Each structure stands twice: as structure tokens, then as C-alpha cells.
């Protein structure tokens, strides 16, 4: 049931919750060393890891093989199912096509592969985009699958992301299901009147739905704001639960970027 009140923001985390919270779209509930790490530690480790991967020269193929192995070890440690991770990797497809076509159009020198003339530079660039993009998307999926949206926002607040942005994000996640349901109700209402969107002539109806959706969302925002003011909201959200970060958490998470930076250094030195 969806209740139009802001109390979720003030919820404590004293109880151990199973299942999905609000806004946990990709979250997979498991008990693992990766799930237990504080969100900010994971975000920092993932960001450092990705930047190191992006900075690695493409010709060091072995380095990317190692990165991929490492990130899949993290997937294993997080007890995530590999088919699930593979399915979510499909989001990358448009760029796979972009990369795969590249060797056919690239400049000389060209090499023969199975009787087809391909650009050597194009092949390397395609490999780079595929390798870095794939490692990146697996890292993002692992982060999203092991971190609750609520913990993520608390973590970001702890590393000094401005409070206004955190609050906007909190409300966005809190009300995304409500607004999506609004959208679904409008769709049912349109279709029960015999409407189906097939082409350009129906855009006007869709735009009217979008307009109505904006007005409903905005008015809901006004109501929520007034309801919060009535409960003593003064612009700051008091969090009764603050996750503790110990040095051990940082040491555990930083294994990932430290391994990566070692690999990158060797890759540059031996190139």
C-alpha cells in the first residue's frame, strides 16, 4: 500500500528488513561481505576502480582479462547469480554495435581476418570500448545489486554530497512507484476508452497525459510538503540511524582499486 506521507524518510533501521525497499530496482537481497560494506565505501571503490580501468592502455589485453576476473570475483563474493548479471549487461548493446562496426570503417593499416579486410586501429579501439564498457557495466550492476537505494543516499551524504541533492533524490526514489502507478492508471483509463498509441497522430493524447502527470506530481509534492511542515519539518531530515564506518571497511573495499592500480602500473611499464 502506498501512503501519502513522508514518514519513510524518518524511518529507523533498527529492524532487519528483508525484501525490497522503495526504489530498490536492481537490489538483490543477500548476506555477503559486499552487501555488508557501507555504501560510501563501495561507491568510492567502484569509482576509483573504473577510472583506473579507463586509464589502462588498450594494448595490454591481459590487464583487461585480469580486471574482468577481479570484478567477477566480486560478483561471486556478493553471491549474485551470474545469469542475472549477464542479463542486466544487455543495457550495453547499442555500444557493442557501435564498437563492432568500427573495424570495418577504420583507416589503414588493414589486416585480413577470415578473408575480410579490417582496420587494425579500428580493431583495437573496438576492443577498448568493449572491454572498458563491459567491466564498467559489471561494476555498476554489482554496486546497484548490493546497495539499497536508501543506504546509497546516506552514504553519499556522508561523503559530503549537498543535502539538497540528497533530499531531492530521496523524494524521487520514494515517489517513483507512486508516479509510475499514476502513469499506469492513466494508461488503463486511456485504453478503456478504446485508445492505443500507434503513431504520430496519437502524440497529442500522450502529451496530455504527460501534462496531467506533471500537474498531479507537482500537486502531490505540495501536499507532501505541507504534510511535512505540519509535522515540524524545517528543511533538515533527521536520520535516526547512522551507519558506522570502521577502518576495516575501507581496507576491505580498497583492495579492489589497489589491485587495479598495480595492474595498470605494470601495464604501462611493460608496454
Amino acid at each position, binding site marked *: 500500500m502506498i501512503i501519502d506521507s513522508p514518514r519513510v524518510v524518518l524511518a529507523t533501521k533498527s529492524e532487519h528488513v528483508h525484501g525490497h525497499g522503495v526504489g530498490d530496482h536492481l537490489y538483490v537481497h543477500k548476506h555477503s561481505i559486499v552487501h555488508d560494506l557501507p555504501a560510501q565505501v563501495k561507491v568510492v571503490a567502484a569509482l576509483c576502480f573504473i577510472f583506473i580501468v579507463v586509464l589502462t592502455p588498450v594494448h595490454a589485453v591481459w590487464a583487461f582479462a585480469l580486471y574482468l576476473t577481479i570484478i567477477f570475483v566480486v560478483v561471486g563474493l556478493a553471491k549474485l547469480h551470474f545469469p542475472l548479471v549477464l542479463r542486466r549487461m544487455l543495457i550495453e548493446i547499442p555500444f557493442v554495435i557501435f564498437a563492432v562496426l568500427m573495424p570495418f570503417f577504420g583507416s589503414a593499416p588493414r589486416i585480413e581476418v577470415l578473408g575480410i579486410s579490417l582496420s587494425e586501429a579500428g580493431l583495437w579501439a573496438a576492443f577498448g570500448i568493449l572491454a572498458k564498457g563491459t567491466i564498467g557495466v559489471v561494476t*555498476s550492476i554489482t554496486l546497484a545489486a548490493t546497495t539499497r537505494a536508501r543506504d546509497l543516499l546516506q552514504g553519499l551524504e556522508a561523503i559530503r554530497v549537498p543535502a539538497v541533492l540528497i533530499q*531531492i533524490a530521496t523524494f524521487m526514489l520514494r515517489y517513483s512507484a507512486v508516479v509510475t502507478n499514476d502513469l499506469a492508471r492513466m494508461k488503463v483509463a486511456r485504453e478503456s476508452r478504446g485508445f492505443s498509441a500507434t503513431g504520430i497522430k496519437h502524440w497529442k493524447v500522450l502529451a496530455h497525459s504527460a501534462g496531467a502527470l506533471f500537474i498531479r*506530481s*507537482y500537486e502531490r509534492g505540495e501536499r507532501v510538503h505541507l504534510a511535512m511542515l505540519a509535522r515540524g519539518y524545517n528543511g533538515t531530515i533527521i536520520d535516526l540511524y547512522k551507519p558506522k564506518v570502521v577502518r576495516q571497511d575501507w581496507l576491505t573495499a580498497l583492495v579492489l582499486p589497489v589491485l587495479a592500480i598495480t595492474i595498470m602500473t605494470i601495464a604501462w611499464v611493460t608496454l
Partner: protein
Amino acid sequence: MHMPDGLINAPVSIGAAVIAAGAITVGLKKSKGTLDSQTAPLAGLVAVFIFAFQMMNFPVAAGTSGHLMGGALASILVGPYVAILVMTVVVSLQALVFADGGLSALGLNLLNMGIVSIVVSALLFAGLMKLLPKTRTSIIGVSATVAFISVLASAGAFVFEYSLGGNATYNIASVLISVMSVHVLIGIGEAIITGLTIGAILATRADLVYGARKFLPAQNLVIKASVVQSNV
């Protein structure tokens, strides 16, 4: 379109992140007047709306579909400064919660889909509205034009970043042509939907459209005497 990791090299990605952070800081400072921290719920619901708006795919041609960006719409509806915050939240959460768009490319994605399209829309909207009569029709027309150009500006920003640090071997001219031709189509879709959406909101709650607020006459509540005499 959310860029993945590795498409643009690290120095350009970091440069874009620095510019994006600067723009967000300006947005945070300037929105204090219109959006003090007390109205975060409102901005949050606008963010949900933009997020839902982006999920609306519309058929373009030959089985392909485009999705909307919403930068121009956000800028006209809530003003450029709040719009920057809203788009920042939407694009960042897409990367962090939905794994859509690379973490190292977050600065680039924020710059292209948020900041560039919002800044272009806001400037163009203000400029065109100075020249045109302050009517509902011109607000709708200007909104559509601004939306079209903002999409091209986003695509142009991508081509510029690609020319600075693209890790690919397509030459700039062919990237420019292919990216721009696709985005002309997407831009037409964005323009029509944005214009119609603004029109729909103007018809019922014109006071909610930031861009129109100064141009539309204040609507006073008028209580008219009943024309029909009741004979009860």
C-alpha cells in the same frame, strides 16, 4: 543516450565532471531563492516526473523508437537552476541505482543531458520570448523550438567531447553526420511532445509553468452573479 565507460578518455571525462560540478554549485546557490531546502519535496516530484517522462518511448520510424531527454521541459517548467538539480539527481541515480551510463562517464552524461540542454533552453527561451508577442501560442511554439535545439546541442556536445577524447576510430565528420541526423529525428519528437505537454499544462495550471509565469496575466478569481434565476 547514456554513455558507457571507456568511450571518451579519462582526461575529458574528468574535465566534464569538473564543469558539471561547477554548474551544479551555481544551480545550488541560485535556486536558494526559488527553492529553499524546504521545497525539496517539490523538486523531488519534478525529478520523478522527468524520470517517468524519459521512460516514455515513442515510435519514430521503421521500428526504431526514441526516448525523451526532458532537459528543455524541466528548464521551462521549473526554471533553469532547479532544473539543473533535478536533472543531476535523475542522471546520477540512473547511473548508481539503474546501472545506466558508466560511472566514469557520469560527468559527461550530466553535462550533455542536463547542463548543456538546460542552459541552451533557458537562454533561447528568454531570448525568443523577448522578440515574440507574449501569448500562449508563442510560449508553446518557443517551447517546441527550444526543445528541438536543446537536443541538437546535447548531441553537439557529445560530438565535441568525442573530437577531444574519443577512444574510437570513426572520423569526426562521419560521427557528426550520423549523430546529428539521428538527433534531428529525436529532436522533432522532443519538440512536439514538449510543446504539447507545455500546452496541456498551460490550459489547466498555467501558474505552474515557470517560463510562462511572467508573461501570462494574473488570473483573478471572479465571482459572477448567476444568470439563471432560480425559481425555487
